[in-house]
C-alpha cells in the first residue's frame, strides 16, 4: 500500500481532505501528498472507513485541488529518527532539519505519540534542583522529573526566566549543569526563537541542545506534532542515553489554539470557549511524558511556558494545565511594572513536589517551615497593604506597619534578583531569615521554636519593640 498513489480525493477544506475508495487504511497512519506542482506535504489519517478516509494535512490544504492531488498512505504513524547526533541540531515541527545540515539517518525511528508510561514503572521525583532563583528554590522548588510550567502573560519576561533556569539549573553540590536541553517552540515569534538560541549560545550549551521550531508564521497543524516530536527526542535522550533532560516548551497557548482550530474543522463538539472536550486528555498526553522511571538513570524535567490569555488564570488552557502539572510558577504584571525581576507572584505559585524534595536530607531542615512561614507572612502583609491603601499607612498599628515593610523588602530583595544572579539555596534561606527577622518571633508560628532560636535575629514580640 505504501507504494500506491491514490488520486481519489472527494473533498478538501481547511486542512482536511477526504479520500474515497481506499480500503483498509490504518488509523493514525502517516500520509504523503503530492500536489499539482509536485510539492510534497504530509498528513495523518484521523478517521478511516472503507469508503472515506479523513486526512489532516499538516501544511494545510491551500492550493490543493481534488483532481491533481496524489496521496500515498505510508502505513505507519509519524516517526522521528533518533540517534546521539540530534544533540546540537535544529529541526522543524515535524522533525526535519532546518539548520541546513543533513537529516538524521537512523534505523531507530520512534512513534512521536509515545506510549503512556505504566504508573507502576514511575519513580517519584525527589532530587532538588537548584535554579538559583530565590522565589523558586525557596518557596516553589523544582525536582528532577517534575513538570512545572511558567504561567505568564504577553509582555512579561517568561522567556528570560526560562532561559535563566536553563543556565543555572543544577543539583545541589554539583559544579555545573548536567542537563541536556530539548527546546520546543510552537507559534513563537522569530525574535523569541532567536533569543533562546543566543542565550544557549552565550552560555556555551548549544551542543547540548536539541531544538524543534514551529514559528508563528508556519503551518498551524504542524504545531500539534511539534511537542510530540520534541518529547520523543527527550525520551530517547533520557531513557536510552541516561541524560537528565530539561524540556522547555513555549508557548502552550499556541498549541491549544492550534488544537481548537483543527477540532473546529473536524466538527468536534466544543466544551469551554470553543476548545474541544479532549483538551485535557491531549495536554496530559504531552505533560505526562515528563518524569522518572524505575531502574533508569535519566529523567525528563519539563518547564512549559504558557501565556494566559488576558492574564486570566481561569482560562481553560492554564486551568487544565494546572490540573495536570505539578504546580505552576505565576508571573505577575504588577511586580513586573514595579521593576521586580523575576516577577514571580508567589501566592498563586506552587510546587506540589516540594514537600518531598526539601528539608533535612535534601536542603536544610528549616526549609519547608521557612517556605510556609514566608507564604503566611506575605499573605498577611498583603492584607495589611490593602488596608493601608484604604485607611492610610499612618493609621496602621506598629505590628501592621512592620508587615508593610516586610512586604516591600520581600518583593525587592527576596523575589527580585539579577538575571545573572545565581543564589545558592542556603543564600536564599539565610535571606529569608533576614526578612523574617523583621517580624516579631511570636508572629512566626509556622517555624519551630528551635529554628527561631537558631536563626531569628529580631525581637520576640511586638511589645518588646
Amino acid at each position: 500500500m505504501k507504494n500506491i498513489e491514490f488520486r481519489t480525493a472527494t473533498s478538501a477544506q481547511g486542512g482536511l481532505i477526504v479520500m474515497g475508495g481506499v480500503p483498509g487504511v490504518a488509523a493514525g497512519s502517516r500520509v504523503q501528498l503530492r500536489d499539482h506542482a509536485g510539492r510534497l506535504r504530509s498528513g495523518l489519517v484521523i478517521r478511516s472507513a472503507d469508503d472515506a478516509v479523513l486526512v489532516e494535512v499538516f501544511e494545510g490544504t491551500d492550493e490543493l485541488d481534488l483532481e491533481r492531488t496524489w496521496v500515498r498512505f505510508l502505513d505507519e504513524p509519524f516517526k522521528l529518527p533518533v540517534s546521539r547526533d540530534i544533540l546540537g541540531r535544529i529541526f522543524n515541527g515535524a522533525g526535519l532539519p532546518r539548520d541546513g545540515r543533513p537529516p538524521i539517518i537512523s534505523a531507530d525511528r520512534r512513534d512521536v505519540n509515545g506510549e503512556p508510561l505504566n504508573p507502576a514503572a514511575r519513580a517519584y521525583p525527589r532530587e532538588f534542583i537548584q535554579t538559583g532563583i530565590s522565589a523558586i528554590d525557596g518557596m516553589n522548588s523544582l525536582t528532577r522529573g517534575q513538570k512545572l510550567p511558567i504561567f505568564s502573560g504577553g509582555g512579561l519576561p517568561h522567556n528570560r526566566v526560562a532561559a535563566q533556569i536553563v543556565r543555572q539549573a543544577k543539583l545541589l553540590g554539583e559544579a555545573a549543569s548536567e542537563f541536556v536541553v530539548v527546546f520546543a517552540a510552537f507559534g513563537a515569534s522569530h525574535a523569541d526563537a532567536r533569543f533562546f538560541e543566543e542565550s544557549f549560545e552565550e552560555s556555551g550549551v548549544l551542543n547540548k541542545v536539541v531544538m524543534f521550531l514551529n514559528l508563528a508564521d508556519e503551518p498551524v497543524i504542524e504545531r500539534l506534532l511539534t511537542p510530540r516530536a520534541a518529547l520523543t527526542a527527550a525520551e530517547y535522550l533520557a531513557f536510552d542515553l541516561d541524560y537528565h533532560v530539561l524540556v522547555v516548551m513555549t508557548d502552550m497557548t499556541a498549541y491549544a489554539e492550534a488544537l481548537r482550530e483543527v477540532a473546529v474543522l473536524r466538527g468536534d463538539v466544543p466544551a469551554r470557549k470553543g476548545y474541544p472536550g479532549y483538551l485535557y486528555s491531549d495536554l496530559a498526553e504531552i505533560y505526562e511524558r515528563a518524569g522518572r522511571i524505575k531502574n533508569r538513570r535519566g529523567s525528563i524535567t519539563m518547564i512549559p511556558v504558557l501565556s494566559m490569555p488576558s492574564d486570566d488564570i481561569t482560562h481553560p488552557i492554564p486551568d487544565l494545565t494546572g490540573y495536570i502539572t505539578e504546580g505552576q510558577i505565576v508571573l505577575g504584571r504588577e511586580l513586573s511594572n514595579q521593576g521586580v525581576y523575576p516577577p514571580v507572584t508567589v501566592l498563586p505559585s506552587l510546587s506540589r513536589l516540594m514537600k518531598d524534595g526539601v528539608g533535612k536530607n535534601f536542603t536544610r531542615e528549616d526549609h519547608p517551615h521557612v517556605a510556609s512561614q514566608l507564604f503566611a507572612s506575605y499573605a498577611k502583609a498583603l492584607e495589611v497593604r490593602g488596608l493601608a491603601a484604604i485607611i492610610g499607612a499612618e493609621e496602621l498599628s506598629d505590628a501592621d506597619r512592620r508587615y508593610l515593610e516586610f512586604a516591600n523588602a520581600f518583593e525587592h530583595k527576596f523575589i527580585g534578583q539579577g538575571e545573572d544572579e545565581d543564589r545558592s539555596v542556603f543564600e536564599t534561606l539565610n535571606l529569608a531569615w533576614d526578612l523574617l527577622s523583621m517580624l516579631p518571633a511570636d508572629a512566626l508560628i509556622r517555624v519551630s521554636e528551635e529554628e527561631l532560636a537558631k536563626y531569628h535575629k529580631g525581637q520576640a514580640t511586638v511589645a518588646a519593640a
Partner: protein
Amino acid sequence: MGKILEINGPLVKLELPETVLGEQVRVGRLGLVGEVIGRDGNTALAQLYEDTAGLRPGEEATGLGWPLSVELGPGLLGAIFDGVQRPLEAVWQQSGDRMARGVAVPSLPRDKRWHFVPDPHRRAGTALAGGDVLGTVQETESILHRILTPPLIHGELLELAPEGDYTIEEILGRVRKFDDTIEKLHLFHRWPVRTPRPFRKRDHAIAPLITGQRILDTFYPLLKGGKAAIPGPFGAGKTMLQQQIARWCNAEIVIYVGCGERGNELTDVLEFMPELKDPHTGRPLMERTLLVANTSNMPVVAREASVYVGITLAEYFRDQGLDVVMVADSTSRWAEALREVAGRLGQMPVEEGYPAYLGSRLAAFYERAGRVETMAGHHGSVTLIGAVSPPGGDFSEPVTSHTKEIIQTFWALSKELADARHYPSVDWLESFSGYIGSAAKWWAENVDPNWERERAEALDLLSASEELQRIVNLVGVEALSSEQRWTLEAAGLIKEGLLQQSAIDEIDSFASPEKQYALLSGLLEIFRQGMKLVKLGAPARRLIQMPLLSQARRWKSQHTSEDIAALKAKIAQIPGEFEKLMLEYEQTA
C-alpha cells in the same frame, strides 16, 4: 465473527450481528478490548479501552460474550490496577515501562496458593444462597478475606473443599442450582461493574468516619456509608487532603481510584503507603489499600470505566462485612470522559458540552455508596468520597452543581485559603454536612456530650469574624469595639490553632477525636474567658498580647493524640492565666 468498518478515535464501528449492548469485544490484529455501546442493524458501535492507532477497516472483531467485569477474590489488596482491572505490576513485568496494547494479563494471580479455611456451617447437602460466606483466607495480617458465594447462585451445596492451600482457579466446591444445573465454586468470582452488587437492605449510617482531620471530623463530619464531595480548583490541596483521608481514616479497606490524574501522584501513593503504618492496626497501610489507576495520559474510555471498577471492588469488600472507603479522584475527569464519548457519538450537548444524562449517571454512581445488611447478614459500608475539579474553580459548573445535589457532605476547598497556605483549605463557610445529627449522637456517647454545642459556637465565632473582617477591610481595626476585636482575635486562634493542620508535621498530621475535642474546647475556653474580661472593661489590645495566645497556636503540634492529659492540664490553667490578668488590670485601674 465480525469485522471493523470504521475507526474514529476511540470509537469503532463494527459489523457484528447479534451482539448485546455492553458486551466486551476484541478487535483487530492487536486484540484491543472494548465494549459495545450501540447497535444499528447489523452494525455495532464499540468504544475501545486502548488507543486505536494502527487499526484498519476490514480487520476482524469478536464478541466475548460477557460485559465488563472484575475478578473478585484474594490477591486484590495491595495491588494496583488500571481502569479495566489489569494488574499494573504484572503488566510492567510482562511488557516493560510503557503500556503496551492488547496485553492480556489476568487480574488476580493464577499461581499463588491461598490458605482456605471452610466455614463450619457449610456442609454438603445444606442450602447455599448468593453472598453466603464459604470460608476465609487470611489475605494479609490485618485483613481476613471472606470467600463469598457469587451473588446470583442459589441452591444446594454438593461439596466444599477441606482446609488447605488452593489457587483461585482450583475448584473449591459444587452447587446444584434450582434448575438442576451444577455450578462450580472458586476462591474468586466475576461481577459486571455497571451492575450494583445486591444486598439484603440498606441500613442507617451511624458512626462517623474518623479521618483525623479536624476541619472534617469536628466541623463537617462524614458517616461510614455516606457520600461526600471535595470540589476545589487546582492547587487548593485536593490531592493532599484525599491522601490524608486514605492514610488516616478508620475504614478497614481503602480503595483509591486515580481517574485521569497525575502519574507521579500515584507513584507517591505507591511509594509512601507501604512505609506507613495503619494507625488503627499498626500494619503497613498498603495491606488495606487497593489502587485503581488510570492516569490522565491513559486512554479515555478506560477512564470512564475505572470508577465503576473501583466501586465494584468496594462493594465486594462491603459484602464481606467490612467498612470500605472509596476515594475517586477525580469525578470531573470521569464526566469529561463521558462527554468525550458523547461528543463523538454526536449526542446533543446540554451544558458545557456535557450530555443530558450527566446528572443521572452521577446520581446512580453515588447511590452505590451506603451502609447495608449484606446477603450473608453482616453489616458493611461503602463510603464514597469524590473529588471534583471545577474548571476555573467555578462551583456553578455542571459536574460540581449536580454533585452538590447528590452528596451529603461537601468539603469545599478554597483557592484563597490555599494561596495563604492555610491547609487543609476547606472553606468553613461554603462547606456543609447533612450528618450533624447522627454524628452528634456518636460524639456525645464516645467523646463529650458538649460536642454539638461547642462545634456550633466555634462556627458562630467564625462567621461573626467574617463580618467583622469586612468592616476592618473598609475602615481599619481601630473602628472595632473591644468585644469585636477579641472576637476577631479568637477566630484567628481557631483558624490557626484548630482548623489549620499540617500533613507533613508528624504530630499534627492526625488528631484523634479526643484531641480534636480538647483543642476545640480549649481554644473556646480562651475565647470565653477573654470575653468575660473584655465585658468587664479590659481592653482587647492587652489581651491580644498574652503569650498564651501564641502558645495555644502551637498545642496542636506539641501534643500527640496519646498525650491528651498534658494538653488538658494546659487547658485547665487557662482560667488562672486570665485571673492573673484580671488582678493586674484591677490594680492598674
